[in-house]
């Protein structure tokens, strides 16, 4: 069986989240991905929790491992000229060069797109940055989580009477790899057909706006500034997370048609609710939403969240348990799809990785554990650059490979 990206060679300078998640897709589908790392500027994710047994260590982070499965790690101290020379040699080997530093760093190393294409004209270079190249904020430092503030996701999350919350984590870092993988594989397709390479300048902010398009368009055309609504929907009711038995347990229920609402009423043993003038139409339910939520909440409160969801779904009513991370690992559907893949990592041992969110019938992914920092340095020097053992020892001694 041929892997989808078989033969594709990736030189990967990406770090933290959006970049490594992007290149993990490439690695899962058969590309050879060499991650350039350094002990002198360790990837933030290598130091991030969780660590195996709670003991910190650059090879013990589950966060890092999950986004770097299957890659080869090469240690290079890029502050040394000899290291930059080796990186330039690798850039000649690569079909794809990826990076997500603040714009300007790769250029300083002599590894900007214009440098690399001199010796590798068909290279596909991918650069992701917070706000894109050019423009006043191009070099403004920041971490992934601030993008939801700039994109208006933060403004649109939480309660109308309170300070906005932010969607959990570095939210957009994990949505955007779908777009970046699409862009890189599209560029590879053109390269394969025409030999033409390109530089993909990806602004994480611009990509994030894809996921808030309706409110943005509402402002652009109607001048309306939408805001956060808790769990309320502009048209549908009921539409909320309802309390269930146990501590902090909830089930989301949404009725998108009168039929679904009537089914819910019957399920509640209160079919008269459907004809109650306060609730008989979607409009009326929106107007009396507080009363509606209270009645439903009283009904859901003593019930087990999962049993409630299954009962609602059987009756044709959209419902979903508000799953904790523990629930996800016990979720029957995710288990059926094989969502958590357990792999043996050299230092962590057996632990979970996310599987891909799509299956390919003819070219399934191959999952492998994440590398230790510098685990494949010798392999890269020997197999790709053909450097003799004696010279490798000199490089080691001078600290280039660290």
């Amino acid at each position, binding site marked *: 069986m041929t892997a989808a990206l078989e033969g594709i060679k990736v030189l990967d300078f990406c770090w933290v989240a959006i970049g490594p998640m992007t290149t993990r897709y490439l690695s899962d*589908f058969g590309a050879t991905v060499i991650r350039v790392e350094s002990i002198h500027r360790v990837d933030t994710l290598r130091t991030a929790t969780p660590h195996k047994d709670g003991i910190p260590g650059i090879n013990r982070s589950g966060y890092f491992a999950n986004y770097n499965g299957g890659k080869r790690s090469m240690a290079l101290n890029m502050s040394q000229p000899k290291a930059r020379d080796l990186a330039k040699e690798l850039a000649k080997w690569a079909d794809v060069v990826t990076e997500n530093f603040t714009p300007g760093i790769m250029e300083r190393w002599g590894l900007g797109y214009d440098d690399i294409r001199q010796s590798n004209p068909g290279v596909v270079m991918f650069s992701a940055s917070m706000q894109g190249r050019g423009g006043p904020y191009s070099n*403004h430092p920041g971490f992934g989580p601030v993008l939801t503030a700039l994109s*208006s996701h933060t403004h649109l999350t939480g309660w109308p009477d309170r300070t906005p*919350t932010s969607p959990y984590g570095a939210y957009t870092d994990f949505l955007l790899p779908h777009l970046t*993988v699409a862009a890189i594989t599209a560029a590879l397709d053109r390269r394969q057909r025409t030999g033409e390479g390109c530089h993909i300048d990806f602004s994480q902010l611009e990509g994030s706006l894809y996921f808030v398009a309706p409110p943005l368009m509402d402002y652009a055309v109607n001048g309306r500034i939408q805001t956060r609504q808790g769990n309320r929907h502009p048209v549908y009711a009921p539409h909320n997370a309802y309390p269930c038995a146990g501590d902090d347990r909830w089930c989301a229920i949404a009725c998108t048609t009168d039929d679904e609402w009537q089914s819910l009423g019957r399920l509640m043993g209160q079919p008269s609710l459907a004809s109650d003038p306060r609730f008989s139409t979607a409009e009326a339910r929106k107007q009396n939403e507080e009363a509606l939520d209270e009645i439903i909440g009283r009904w859901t409160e003593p019930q087990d969240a999962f049993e409630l969801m299954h009962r609602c779904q059987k009756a044709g009513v959209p419902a979903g348990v508000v799953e904790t991370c523990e629930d996800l690992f016990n979720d029957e*559907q995710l288990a059926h799809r094989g969502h958590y893949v357990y792999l043996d990592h050299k230092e962590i041992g057996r632990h979970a990785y996310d599987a891909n969110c799509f299956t390919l019938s003819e070219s399934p992914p191959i999952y492998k554990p994440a590398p230790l920092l510098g685990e494949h340095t010798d392999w890269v020097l020997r197999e790709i650059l053909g450097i003799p053992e004696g010279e490798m020892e000199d490089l080691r001694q001078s600290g280039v490979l660290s």
Partner: protein
Amino acid sequence: MLAPYRVLDLTDGRGALCGRVLGDLGADVIKVEPPWGDDARRIGPFYKDDPHPENSLFWAFNAANKRSVTLDVDAEDSRPLLTRLIKSSHFLIESFRPGHIETLGLGYGAVKEINPSIIYVSITPFGQDGPYASYKATDLTGMALSGMMYLTGDADRPPVRISTPQFWAIGSASAAAGALIANHHRLLTGKGQLVDVSCQQAVARSLSHAPMIWDMSRMNMQRQGPFRPVGKINLRINWECADGYVNFIQPGGHTGGRSMSNLSDWMDEEGVGHAVLRETDWGEIGFGQLSPELVEAMTPPLEQFFMSKTKAHLAEQALERRILLFPVHDPKDVFSYPQLLARDYFREAELPSYTEVSETMKTLGPFISTGSFRRAPRIGEHNREIYQDELGMSDEEITRLQREKTI
């Protein structure tokens, strides 16, 4: 980049973003809609709040870079035409509930018979099979079942979804990635295949480190409102200011330390500095190492300072003084953000409307700066172009199908 490829887009509103992504990358995306207009056209917001199918702004965004033909895929008569469209396409995208498209005779098995090398992309909440495959999902219930909701919201209130739909959009974006990975496989082998997308999985892998924390430490992460845990303490990230909110965090470490010193200097210049801010050696505090006492002492002067300034002013000074502070934009702010304007991100397009309009609107550009852009089509706008000029149908044939309301 994808100019040689044709995409047959049979999705409804749920899978609409996939074709938009492929269109941004240059593919010829043909949206097949019934003669009365696509389901996605019923999704708001609407121009002037008038829910006419030509007025949907959801459509205006999701159908940009697509061409539209009308065809009632439920009608018997549509088969020959569909077969021709399928033969001329390289990708087919659909987002019906599992099993439904088979009843139309358009399942992967049937389509593969017509075009063996086609890449067939199915976007569903939970994937094509499994115990929840037939479960209904809305954005709310989908975000609940994928773990995002539990982690989002204020600690003392129920968990919340993001107030604008994410679930299908994330799944549909991932479908574009899956389709193009499969396309590369086809370049190598000539083979088509089925790409089966689960929106639940797409969101479940968007939870930062939270699932791995469960796997390794058996700890369920909790929702934190406008705070983030850094080290052993919770730090505020969203702060109120004179006209809204700003995002600011001082997590310690080198970058955070310099940012905090710069902010303190600015406050001193304005005569509202504070001893704690001035006298703390911020450069000495490691990442996540702030003491609870320090956090308590530094918070009130920061709150007061932010409340005295607008978000635009704070953001402008943050850039100049290299402070890690960002405006919490509302949708209006996004359109006047200097960075997006400097990069010429927005596009002008005719207003989507069924009446004759000469006015234009600002709309979102392609997701990469070199991408394509054309406005979303009207219902059946490209019928002649595609049916007649490209598929070579005769006038009579088109007129007959129109009379029978097939196209």
